[in-house]
């Protein structure tokens, strides 16, 4: 089994987001980068598949200097090798272009499985895994909470509104991880030390052969402005005994908010 895991380096979810003066980026000074939370489930699933079926895991991440630490951490969790897609051309890519680069790194390398997170923090797009599947002309199952591989066949369970769907198909395929897929293990000190010696290969637009394609798709959709969420008007505390609080609340919900 040859497995690619797409890993996005993102600002720590505890980060207080501040908008930079250009109005399209966030302030990055002092921001700590982590593995996008859903990608941790993708990494763990790849390791589990390898434990069961043998094979090789390649981590792939597109981004700037922030990627290195995140890939090192992923290597410690059990990736065999890592690929860093890095180029000035890759700054601020939309999901179509991002997936174009990732697909180029995956194509013609005999991968059986691509694992992604179902959503990457930042863009919050839920798009990249699906677009990779389309560009490779593979099938896809998004938001999976269970995956069984048997030879060249798979059975995946995915979360939809109020139900789970069981999807059966053949590899190669792209899967995106939902939270319930597994429980990620954390690497030991020994694994972290060993990972320091593992290699991270860097590829740019030229060596990926995507220069023209990315130049063409890069501006199809662009972020014009980033703004803070509309401020919520400071609410009010409802005081009194529990009985009084409840009476007042019901009154307000009915007369003021008009929701009940």
């Amino acid at each position: 089994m040859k497995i690619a895991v797409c890993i996005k380096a993102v600002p720590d979810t505890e980060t207080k987001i501040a908008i930079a003066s250009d109005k399209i980026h966030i302030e990055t000074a002092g921001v700590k980068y982590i593995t996008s939370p859903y990608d941790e489930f993708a990494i763990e699933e790849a390791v589990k598949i390898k434990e069961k079926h043998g094979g090789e895991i390649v981590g792939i991440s597109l981004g700037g200097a922030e990627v290195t630490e995140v890939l090192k951490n992923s290597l410690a969790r059990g990736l065999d090798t890592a690929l860093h897609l890095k180029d000035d051309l890759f700054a601020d890519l939309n999901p179509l272009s991002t997936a174009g680069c990732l697909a180029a790194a995956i194509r013609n390398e005999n991968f059986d499985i691509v694992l992604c997170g179902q959503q990457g923090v930042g863009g919050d797009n839920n798009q990249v895994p699906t677009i990779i599947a389309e560009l490779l002309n593979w099938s896809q199952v998004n938001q999976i909470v269970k995956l069984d591989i048997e030879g060249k066949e798979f059975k995946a369970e995915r979360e939809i509104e109020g139900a789970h769907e069981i999807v059966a198909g053949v590899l190669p395929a792209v899967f995106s991880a939902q939270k319930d897929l597994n429980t990620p293990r954390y690497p030991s000190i020994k694994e972290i030390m060993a990972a320091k010696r593992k290699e991270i290969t860097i590829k740019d637009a030229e060596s990926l052969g995507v220069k023209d394609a990315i130049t063409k798709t890069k501006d199809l959709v662009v972020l014009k402005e980033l703004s803070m969420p509309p401020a919520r008007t400071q609410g009010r505390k409802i005081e009194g005994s529990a009985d009084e609080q409840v009476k007042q609340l019901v009154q307000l919900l009915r007369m003021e908010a008009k929701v009940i």
Partner: protein
Amino acid sequence: MADKDFLVFIEQRQGVIKKASLEVLSEAIRQNKDKNGTVTAVLICADSTLLVKNITCFQPNKVIVISGHEYSEYSTESYANALQTVVEKLNPKYTFAANTAMGKDLIPRVAAHFTSPCVTDVVELIAEGSNLLAVKPMYSAKSYGKFAFNSDMSFMTLRPNVFPLAEKNESASVPVETLSCPPIEVRAKVVETKASEKQKMELTEAPIIVSGGRGIKGPENWAMLQDLCDVLGAALGASRAVVDAGWIDHQHQVGQTGKTVSPQLYIACGISGAIQHLAGMNSSKNIVAINNNPDAPIFKLATYGLVGDVFEIVPKLTEEIKKLKGES
């Protein structure tokens, strides 16, 4: 005139049309008002006989139906193939769908097929000349991004519960066209659908949500929140802490690694209001917080904050609302 037309993908499962996709249709028709393009709704399903009326009453310019047994269960490949056939034929400037599990799975794939851009989870559309700008939450709703398209063809998924449904006109007459599309080999198929037994109403579509956190002390106390849900017609939500503790299924989780919801009313019971939880619910129209710690961060966001014990307040609240509903 393809350069201003709208195409709206109408989602159905098991022969039931998703309300969220009718919200999207309503919004497309509103956006088209000054543009004078055409709004076409496309329905892909096993049998359209009983469904089409639910669409025509919103008065799109046309409905296109693609039906056949191969569409009885959703599959990415067969639905993408069908939608692509329609897009190719109509060449719409904008293709819309609801931001649901199906919409998120289908629309970026079809967009990529046409090397076209897609923006998901749109919460606001802004007309700028003959173009639309799309606004969506980013960084777990800690900021909002405004996107511009530079493409003859663009795709968007719109968040449920944000765009209002238009008035219906049951007697509207709208042309309905059936289209067939070339069959394809489907490599990944749905072989079974397991409905979750607990959730009577889908969180992302519920107008009211009652959510419980660690403050409810244990899974045996969901019944108390469920009672409140029942009198309000609300769906049951949860914080990650209690999902991780195994008190309830992940389907119920609200937040960054759970669902993003924007109901009319969100009642947080014994939830502290961690930033990752807020990410999933801070666009709710009204927020009620019930928490015994006056300094809990949830109070910063709450429209109405009640400092107190959930075990005392929630049952009283259920009773009071029951009384009120009995009267009216």
